C-alpha cells in the first residue's frame, strides 16, 4: 500500500499549478471563453508544448506513458484553473479510444498529430434518447458493397464543432441497449453526410449535435474489432469520468478556499461574516466534504493505478460522492458570497457552472450510485 507520488509526478503537478497561476488566470480564461474559437489555438499549442497532450500515451507512440496518477494531478489543477481547453474530448476521450483500439496505421494517421497538438478530436458518446446509457445506440452502420453507411443522431458531442476527427460508435448488429454489435468508427469531420450544429455550453465549453446521413466510410475507419467496440468505449468513458471527478475535486476545493477567504474579508454588521458561528460550522462541513472527496479521489486513483478488479466500482463511488456532496460545497460557496456569488463578474459563478456540468457529465450522482450498487461488492 503506497500513498506516495514520484518526484516526476510531483513536478508535473507543480508545473500545471504554475501554468494556472501564471498563464491561465481568471481574466485570461474569460477572454478565451468569450472568443469565437472553442479555445485559443495558441493556448492549445502551449499545452502541447508542455507535453500534456502526450501525457497518457505510450512512449512508443510518442507519449509520456502517464497513468491515472498523472491524469489525476493534472485534472485537479485544471479544475482549480477552470481550464476550458478541449483536453478531455481530444486527449482523454478520442485519444483514449485511439490508445486502446487503433492499429499502427490509424495511430500514424491520427494519434501523432493529436499528440503534437495539430489535431483536435471528439468522441460521440451520447445519443438524444440514451440519457446516460452508453450502450443505448440507435445510430446504424450498414455494410454495403465494401463500405459502411452510417445513419443516426449524436447528442452533446464535446468539442464536436471544432474536432477534425470524430470517433462515432454505431451499431453494426444487435438491438438498442445491446452491448454487443457496437462498432467504433474514426471519421474525418469533413466527410460527406456529417451535419454539425455547434454551440457553447453553460460552463463555457463547446459541444455539438451531430446528424449522420448516409455517411460512407471505408472499412479501415473501423477502430478495433467490428461489433466489439463497447468494452473500449466503456473503459474510455470510465477514465474520462475519473478525470472530471478529479477536476471537480479541484473545483470544490477552490470554491471552499475562496469562500473562507471571502468570509474573512467581507464585513457585515460591523464584523467579518466569517465570525458568524452558523457560517463557520457550514464552512467546516464543506471543508470535510473537500477532504472526504480528496480521500476518495486518492483511493480511486490507487485502485486505477493498481489495475485489477474494482476500478469501475471505485470510479462510480468517486463520481457519486463528488457530485452529491460537492453540490453542497458549490451551493454554500454561492450562498455565502451572497449577491456577488450570482454575478457573472466573480469566478465563483463560473466554478459553480462548471461543477454543475460535471455533475451531469457521464452520468449524474443517482446513476453512479445505482451503478456502484449493481457492480459486485469488493
Amino acid at each position, binding site marked *: 500500500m503506497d500513498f506516495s507520488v514520484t518526484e516526476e509526478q510531483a513536478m508535473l503537478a507543480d508545473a500545471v499549478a504554475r501554468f494556472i497561476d501564471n498563464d491561465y488566470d481568471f481574466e485570461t480564461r474569460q477572454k478565451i471563453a468569450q472568443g469565437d474559437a472553442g479555445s485559443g489555438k495558441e493556448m492549445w499549442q502551449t499545452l502541447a508544448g508542455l507535453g500534456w497532450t502526450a501525457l497518457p500515451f505510450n512512449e512508443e507512440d510518442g507519449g509520456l506513458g502517464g497513468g491515472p496518477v498523472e491524469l489525476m494531478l493534472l485534472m485537479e489543477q485544471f479544475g482549480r484553473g477552470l481550464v476550458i481547453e478541449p483536453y478531455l474530448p481530444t486527449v482523454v476521450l478520442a485519444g483514449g479510444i485511439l490508445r486502446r483500439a487503433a492499429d499502427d496505421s490509424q495511430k500514424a494517421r491520427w494519434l501523432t498529430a493529436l499528440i503534437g497538438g495539430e489535431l483536435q478530436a471528439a468522441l460521440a458518446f*451520447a445519443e*438524444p*434518447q*440514451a*440519457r*446516460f446509457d452508453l450502450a*443505448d445506440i*440507435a445510430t446504424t452502420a450498414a455494410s454495403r458493397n465494401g463500405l459502411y453507411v452510417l445513419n443516426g443522431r449524436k*447528442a*452533446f458531442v464535446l468539442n464536436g464543432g471544432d474536432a477534425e476527427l470524430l470517433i462515432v460508435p454505431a451499431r453494426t448488429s444487435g438491438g*438498442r441497449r445491446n452491448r454487443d454489435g457496437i462498432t467504433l468508427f474514426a471519421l474525418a469531420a469533413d466527410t460527406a453526410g456529417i451535419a454539425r*450544429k455547434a*454551440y*457553447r*455550453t*453553460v*460552463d463555457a465549453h463547446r*459541444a455539438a*449535435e451531430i446528424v449522420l446521413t448516409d455517411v460512407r466510410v471505408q472499412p479501415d475507419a473501423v477502430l478495433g474489432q467490428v461489433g466489439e467496440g463497447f468494452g473500449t468505449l466503456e473503459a474510455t468513458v470510465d477514465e474520462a469520468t475519473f478525470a472530471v471527478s478529479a477536476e471537480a475535486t479541484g473545483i470544490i476545493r477552490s470554491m471552499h478556499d475562496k469562500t473562507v477567504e471571502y468570509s474573512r474579508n*467581507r464585513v*457585515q*454588521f460591523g464584523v467579518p461574516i466569517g465570525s*458568524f458561528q*452558523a*457560517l463557520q460550522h457550514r464552512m467546516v462541513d464543506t471543508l470535510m466534504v473537500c477532504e472526504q472527496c480528496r480521500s476518495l479521489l486518492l483511493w480511486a486513483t490507487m485502485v486505477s493505478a493498481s489495475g485489477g478488479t474494482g476500478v469501475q466500482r471505485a470510479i462510480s463511488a468517486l463520481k457519486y460522492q463528488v457530485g452529491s456532496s460537492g*453540490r453542497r460545497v458549490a*451551493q454554500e460557496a*454561492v*450562498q455565502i458570497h*451572497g*449577491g456577488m*456569488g*450570482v*454575478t*457573472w*463578474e466573480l469566478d465563483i*459563478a463560473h466554478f*459553480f*457552472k462548471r461543477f*454543475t*456540468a460535471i455533475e*451531469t457529465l457521464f452520468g*449524474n450522482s*443517482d446513476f453512479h450510485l*445505482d451503478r456502484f450498487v449493481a457492480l459486485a461488492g469488493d
Partner: protein
Amino acid sequence: MTGAVRVQRNIGYTAATSRVKPNLPPVGSNSVKFREEYADRQTILDQGSTMNVNFSDDELTFRDEVRNFLQEKYPADIREKQDSAVALGKDDMVRWQKILYEQGWAGVNWPVEYGGTGWSAIQKYIFANEIAAVNAPEMVPFGVKMVAPVIYTFGNEEQKARFLPDILMSNVWWCQGYSEPGAGSDLASLKTRADRRGDRYIVNGTKTWTTLGHFADWIFCLVRTSSDVARRQEGISFLLVDMSTPGVSVQPIITIEGEREVNEVHFHDVAVPVDNLVGEEGKGWTYGKVLLQHERANIAGVARSKYRMKHLREKYAQSIDGGRSLLEDRNFARKLAAIEIELKALEYTELRTLAAVAVGKAPGPESSILKVKGSEIQQAIDALTVDAAGYYALPYVPQQYHLDFPADERIGSGAETQSSLRYFNNRKASIYGGSNEIQKNIISKHVLGL
C-alpha cells in the same frame, strides 16, 4: 363543571356520567396555549362547521369565474411566449396587467377603498392557483405589492391620490432602491444621502440589485436624511424618485446565467421634491420593514411551484425519444414525490398564515418561514429539473427562445436547455429579500425568543 363533562355533553354523550373522574381543575394555561396554537384555524371558520378540504359552492363559483376570465382574457400571444420559455417584453407585462386592472383584479391585497379586491384568504389562494395553472405571468411586484402598501399605509392623501391609481393601472413602472453596493444583508448600513435643501432633497449614492430597473419610471428608496443618530436604523427616510430626474443613471449587472435582470442605479445630485417623502422623515426603516414582511408573505410562490411540478411530471411522463419514462425511474419518482409532499405542507403553512392575516394580524416573523421554505422548495425543483434534462441541461442557447425561431431547429425538447440557466439564476432566491440566514436570525429572535 369540569371540561370533561362539557366535552361529553357537547358531543352528546350523556350515558354514565357517574363514571366521570370528579373535580378536574378549570381550564388552565395549557388549554389557553392550545387555543392560541389553533387560533389560526379558528379564523376562517363558520361556527359549527368542521375541517373540510373541499371547496364550498361559493368557492367553486369564484374559481369558475377566474377560469372563465383567464380563458377569455389571457392573450394568446403572451401565453405562447410563456409556454415556450420566451422572455416577455415590458409591453407584454404592462398589457397583461392592464387586463387584470380592467377586471378589477390588479390590487389583490389592497383595501377595497383604494380599488382592492377585498377577497378572502381562500379567494386569494384560488386566484393564485388558477393564474399559475395556466402559467400566466404574475403582477410585477414592485408597484402593486411593494411600494403601494407603504403609500396607502403611511402616505398622505395627496400621495395616495397621485400614485396609487397609476400603480393599479400599470401606468407607471416602479423599482426598488434598498440594497447598496457592499451592504448586502446589512440594509441599515446604507449610505445614500438625501440632504434637505429648502423644499427639495439632494440625493447622492448608489443602489444595487435593482430588478428590472431599466424598465422603471419611478424608484422607491431608503435614504439617509440624518447621520446624527444613535442607532443606524434611525435617520433613514422613505423617498419616491422620478427616474427621469437629471442625475439618475442605470447600469446593468450581468448575473450568473448571462442575462441582464438587475441593475445599479446611481444618484448624482438628484433633486427630489420633499413632497415625495412618504410618512415622517427618519421613519423609513419602520416602513421598509413592514414592506419586507408583506414581500415575504407573497414570496413562498407555492402556486407557481405546484405548476412547475405538474409540468415536470407531465413532460417526463412521456418517454424521451423511445427511452424509458423518467417517472418509471424510482429515484426520480421518489425525489419528485418528496418535493410534492414538502410543497403540500408549505401550501397549508401559507394558508394558515393567510388565515392569520385575514383576521387583521400583520404577517409577522412567521412569514420568514414561508420565505425560507419557499426558496428551498423552488431551488429543489430547479435542481430536479436539471437532473431530468440530462445532457440537454448543458447547451447554452438562449437565442433559440424567440417565437420566430424554428421549433425543429431547437436543441433539446421544450425548454430543457433553460433548466440549468434557471437553476443558476434562482440561487438568488435564498439570497435576496433578506438572505435565508437573515430570515433565520429573525425567526430565532422573534419566534423562538433566542
